């Protein structure tokens, strides 16, 4: 390789590496802000802002969904499989909302530690399968002895 070309190549590699490092550090320092939502453990540990809107993500606890009164208000609990937070929401839920489903809610905590949401988004998981496969997976799980 001719020296001038090698020089250009080295220059390009250095440029890309430099920018990569710069962006890497920037993203690292903005890490908190880039998180789309807080987990339920974060909220109970007091990491979420107490008086501002923030997003809370987690799985809807099975059997926790209740609709008291007019039917548009929903109460449910979110979990990250270690801590649970109660959520209250009035409005239309997305198609994928169901028990055991991951969701992200936007709102804030009231005085009693209940998260009052004004928006609920469903977080789809990365699994795709036909209904029959899901049914047989469920059957397998059910027939397995609980350890």
């Amino acid at each position, binding site marked *: 390789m001719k020296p001038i070309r090698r020089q250009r190549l080295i220059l390009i590699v250095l440029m*890309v590496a430099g*920018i990569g490092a710069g962006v890497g550090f920037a993203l690292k320092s903005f890490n908190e802000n*880039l998180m*789309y939502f807080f987990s339920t453990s974060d909220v109970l540990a007091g990491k979420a802002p107490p008086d501002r809107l923030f997003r809370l993500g987690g799985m809807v606890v099975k059997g926790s969904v209740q609709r008291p009164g007019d039917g548009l208000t929903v109460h449910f609990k979110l979990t990250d499989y270690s801590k649970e937070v109660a959520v209250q929401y009035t409005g239309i839920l*997305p198609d*994928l909302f169901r028990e055991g489903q991951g969701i992200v809610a936007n709102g804030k905590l009231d005085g009693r530690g209940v998260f009052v949401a004004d928006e609920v*988004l469903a977080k789809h998981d*990365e699994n795709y399968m*036909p209904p029959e496969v899901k049914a047989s997976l469920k059957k397998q799980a059910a027939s397995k002895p609980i350890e």
Partner: protein
Amino acid sequence: MALIPAPVIRFYHRMASPPHFYALTEKLMPWLVAIFVVLLAIGLYGGLYLAPPDYQQGDSYRIIYIHVPSAWMSLFIYVMMAVTGAIGLVWRIKLAEIVAISSASVGASFTFIALVTGSLWGKPMWGTWWVWDARLTSELILLFLYLGVIGLYNAIDDKRTASKAVAILALVGVVNIPVIHYSVEWWNTLHQGPTVTKMDKPSIHVSMLVPLLVMAGAFKFYYLIAMLKRAQLELLQREPTSAWVKKIVAEQI
């Protein structure tokens, strides 16, 4: 340089010659189109008709047969553009510059399609058209990078200078590619995690995966067709007075 076998170097040098490149792509074109059409037909039939509905989303998930290959292509084409741009910068090969700029508009289109189809799917499934999470935002930045490359190229009259400027911009933006890919793992996002490119086995049923991969293949061929056609045009426009272009024009008339 002894590491690379001689025939490869010879192929490389011949491809770098515009008349040879033009003639070869002209010969390849019908084959590329045929493969693209066949793959597209198989992929669409498999994806829209043969593949079973999803256990949660029913038939709405079928948009992934457009969305996912488009998103993959948006990343792949950007890397192609940056690599050929770098080759153009280092070795000053005109054809590498041309492939780089010809890739830009195809990549921008795929990025746009990925964003629009994702948004259409997001409304019924997530409950929103758009959120500013890490994946969606970085993909939007990718679209702006493509548009920046196209705009910059058209803003500079001397095309050799324009190609250098564009290559540098493309290389600066390359840092966004790993950010897009890993955004769903590094941060909490509303967008789901990777399905197919997971280290363990993909979490998509094989009857749904096969049409997806076929569609990805079809999109690759579409990129080749669109990019090579643009490259041919760009070549003709850049060398309007050279002997081989005159000969082709004379044959056409």
